[in-house]
């Protein structure tokens, strides 16, 4: 093989499909004879459905069905709990009871021959309720804080402690003790959730937006009491998700229920408003961080207490305080995580879950400490750089945080920064420069893949994975081409079908680590099978050769050390008839997992310009430098990172879902009112990668990228805002009025 394909900036293999409109997303799979379903959402925050005037709308044109808890069949809802589901609680059982638990809960579905007929009837349907006052404000004194009963994963612990953090902070010569708030955010991918459901007897096909096809298959099978193999989920393209499609939400059940009720395929697409009701959100959080340090800037004690909102019916947990356990060296560290149960729907993971929120608190506090000590913020982090993960007492598999700070600060021009707040100006504008650390665990989950070598020389590769935008189609094509020794044009990578070999959810920055490693294993297995065929084939020049004496080079099999080109896959397959078909799977070696602490690290720099008179904040420049192991495709990796920075700008300055405290209604459930960065908001963005070799994480040496790309941006911006104005803002998003009072 010539130069490695891994590391090459291959253009997206699905680019043409996406620029011609031929890439098909869930709602694009119109089925013959399909009807349209529209959900009617509860307009009260807590109570009971007393009456549904279904008869009034059943007479309207084109109406096929009005389904409510009164006429919906009782569904089996067999026990089902995936990794992605909260460990405690039970999912919403839709249309199975008259209870309304939160504003926007589905209370009916209307099915009609056209979308307009269904929308018209859903709008007209009168639902009356018995109403109670919901509690939706986690800051309300009546909102009881509970200890999470279970951890979704070992890293989300309720309480963790080493040394005596409280004592150390109390006695420290220099102290910071502050509270940080982050608003609820909604993922708001461009593609609304959508499901088209079609039954054929007791077999169900779902064209459905999902980041976790095999779980959607298993969950819907459990809800309807079907064998899993009776359900197929198809989703070749995802129009962004950021976590919202990790779980299977009620609308998928509703689409299938409606399709069975009317015995026709049914298409159900959520409205943008409904995307704020039942499809998860980054939970609103409140955190306390207390730091104690010596005058020289050595941390002596760290306390991080965090609280996140959840629903009454499920305990959603995220790793809110975990970064504090391992990010810096300190003998005395205590972290605590609590939940506030409210009358809202259940939150779920949103890009950089837990860590993005937790690091805002920790990295803001570190910045505050740096000013109090009079030490450069980057130097403060250098003085507390740990040699090992002190919480786990294990070495890091790799950690390039300081290299990231060096690379990033040089590109960013950190040396230009004058330390004093309000000391930098551009004309009348206040200029601020801030930095923050980013980190995210390098996860890896068991996955499998299939490789088929065809007689025409093409290789087909399949896995039940997803591509919500990072470029899975392209990067997996590169991995397969690399290990098969083929040009990428000869590889066809397919994903998006639950019937393909099982993979974990497309989230948590583990797709390349998990699916990529599985593809590698399947490629190696395919080569082994092809070699065995070649030596068993009497007409082959390699007949009766010892497999151990053969080698693969650029997709050709030859005797080791021999100069000949050797046999191509095409030669081998064409001579022996049937395609070579091989499956491979991979998972992290448990012994290696036990031995190392595995995380990505990065350093994010932000420059802001603030109008001192009207308080408008413009981000001018962001540089992110990351140590993420091997970069499979630098073109895609840079896009991931700059996209994550843009998400971070939203988190820092724009995004918040506001609930009406009277009824829990999201008052800005609209794309014009839920503010997100638009083109004109985007400054110069630069993503850099340090050369990092991690031999431990997985055979590909990749540590994951999707989450860390967002983590760290918001605190870097908040720290820059302080540097510009001298005003410390401890709540996100930062508003104009926050800096106007500076």
């Amino acid at each position: 093989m010539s130069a490695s394909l891994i590391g090459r900036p291959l253009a997206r293999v699905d680019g043409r499909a996406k620029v011609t409109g031929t890439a098909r997303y869930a709602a694009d799979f119109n089925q013959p004879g399909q009807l349209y379903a529209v959900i009617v959402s509860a307009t009260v925050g807590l109570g009971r459905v007393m009456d549904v005037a279904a008869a009034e709308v059943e007479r309207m044109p084109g109406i096929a069905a009005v389904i409510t808890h009164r006429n919906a069949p009782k569904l089996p809802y067999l026990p089902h709990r995936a990794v992605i589901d909260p460990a405690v609680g039970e999912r919403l059982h839709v249309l199975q009871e008259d209870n309304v638990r939160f504003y926007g809960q589905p209370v009916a579905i209307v099915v009609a021959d056209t979308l307009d007929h269904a929308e018209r009837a859903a709008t007209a349907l009168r639902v009356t309720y018995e109403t109670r006052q919901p509690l939706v404000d986690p800051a309300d004194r009546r909102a009881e804080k509970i200890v999470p009963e279970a951890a979704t994963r070992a890293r989300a612990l309720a309480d963790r402690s080493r040394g005596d953090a409280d004592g150390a902070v109390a006695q420290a010569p220099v102290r910071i003790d502050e509270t940080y708030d982050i608003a609820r955010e909604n993922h708001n991918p461009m593609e609304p959730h959508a499901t088209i459901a079609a039954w054929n007897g007791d077999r169900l096909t779902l064209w459905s937006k999902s980041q976790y096809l095999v779980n959607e298959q298993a969950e819907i099978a459990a809800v309807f009491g079907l064998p899993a193999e009776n359900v197929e989920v198809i989703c070749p393209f995802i129009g962004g998700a950021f976590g919202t499609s990790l779980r299977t939400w009620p609308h998928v059940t509703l689409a299938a229920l409606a399709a069975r009720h009317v015995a026709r395929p049914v298409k159900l697409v959520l409205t943008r408003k409904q995307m704020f009701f039942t499809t998860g959100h980054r939970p609103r959080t409140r955190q306390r961080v207390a730091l104690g340090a010596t005058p020289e800037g050595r941390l002596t004690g760290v306390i991080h207490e965090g609280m996140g909102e959840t629903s009454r019916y499920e305990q959603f947990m995220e790793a809110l305080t975990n970064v504090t356990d391992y990010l810096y060296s300190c003998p005395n560290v205590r972290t605590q995580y609590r939940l506030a149960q409210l009358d809202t729907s259940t939150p779920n993971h949103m890009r950089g879950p837990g860590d993005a929120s937790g690091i805002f608190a920790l990295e803001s506090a570190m910045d505050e400490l740096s000013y109090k000590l009079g030490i450069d913020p980057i130097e403060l982090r250098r003085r507390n750089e740990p040699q090992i993960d002190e919480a786990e007492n294990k070495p890091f598999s790799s950690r390039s945080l300081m290299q990231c700070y060096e690379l990033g600060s040089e590109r960013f021009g950190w040396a230009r920064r004058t330390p004093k707040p309000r000391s930098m100006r551009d004309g009348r504008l206040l200029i601020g420069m801030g930095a923050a650390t980013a980190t995210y665990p390098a996860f890896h989950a068991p996955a499998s893949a299939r490789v088929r070598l065809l007689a025409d020389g093409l290789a087909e590769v399949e896995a039940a994975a997803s591509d919500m935008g990072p470029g899975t189609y392209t990067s997996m094509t590169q991995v397969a081409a690399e290990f098969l020794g083929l040009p990428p044009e000869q590889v066809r990578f397919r994903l998006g079908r639950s019937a393909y070999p099982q993979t974990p959810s497309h989230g948590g920055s583990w797709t390349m680590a998990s699916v990529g490693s599985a593809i590698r294993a399947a490629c190696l297995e395919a080569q082994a099978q092809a070699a065995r065929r070649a030596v068993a084939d009497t007409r082959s020049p390699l007949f009766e050769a010892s497999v151990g004496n053969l080698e693969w080079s650029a997709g050709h099999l030859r005797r080791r050390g021999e100069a000949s080109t050797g046999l191509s896959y095409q030669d081998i397959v064409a001579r022996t008839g049937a395609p070579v078909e091989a499956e491979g799977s991979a998972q992290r070696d448990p012994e290696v997992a036990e031995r190392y602490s595995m995380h990505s690290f990065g350093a994010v720099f932000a420059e802001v310009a603030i109008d001192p008179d009207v308080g408008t904040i413009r981000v001018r420049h962001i540089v992110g430098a990351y140590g993420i192991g091997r970069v499979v495709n630098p073109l895609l990796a840079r896009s991931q990172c700059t996209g994550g920075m843009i998400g971070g700008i939203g988190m820092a300055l724009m995004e918040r879902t506001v609930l009406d405290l009277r009824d829990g209604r999201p008052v800005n459930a609209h794309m014009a009112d839920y503010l997100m960065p638009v083109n004109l908001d985007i400054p110069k963005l630069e993503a850099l990668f340090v050369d990092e070799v991690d031999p431990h994480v997985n055979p590909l040496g990749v540590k994951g990228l999707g989450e860390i790309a967002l983590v760290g941006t918001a605190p870097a911006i908040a720290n820059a805002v302080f540097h510009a104005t001298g005003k410390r803002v401890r709540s996100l998003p930062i508003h104009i009025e926050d800096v106007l009072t500076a």
Partner: protein
Amino acid sequence: MAENPSELHLPGPIMSRREALQVTAGAVTLAALPPETVAATSSSPAVVKNDMTLTMTVNGRIHTLTVDPRQSVLDVLRETLDLTGTKKGCNQGACGACTVLVDGKRIVSCLTLAAMHGGAQIETIEGLEKDGVLHPLQEAFVEHEGLQCGFCTPGQIMSGLGCIAEGHAGSPQEIQFWMSGNICRCGAYPGIVAAVADAAGRT
């Protein structure tokens, strides 16, 4: 939209956005009446069937269509003509994913009633590729990473065509301004600007 009337807090007759548009367009129909009225006046059909027939040229092909007067251009494209390249991101005119060219001008097709565009020339993403050759702007989007998930891409490209045609692609800053009606949640904005600038330079 499927919002319940009680959410709107409006006294008196409830009208959807589209019906309100019909009223302002002087085309009040029975469909615009509140459901109570409809129920009270109906002996046979609950609502008078008032579908309209019109012709529309989409990507150079003439279609004679029977449309519900409430139907948006977007829904006609996606649900009647099965031209699903044009996307519905918000149905509120706030995201730009549904942008198409109507008589050469970029519009959000979700807020545009098909009934008001009889005889119109509509261009969608499906019409740009000619004889297997991509439009330069399509090529530029791939080349400059002007996309990630691809869902906003058809709207971005149609909007980019409009932006160039309007003479608003003179500088990256100008492109940023005139492309800000198209949200990209993945954050492919730098690539989008580069793609529009590149294509504007080529044409």
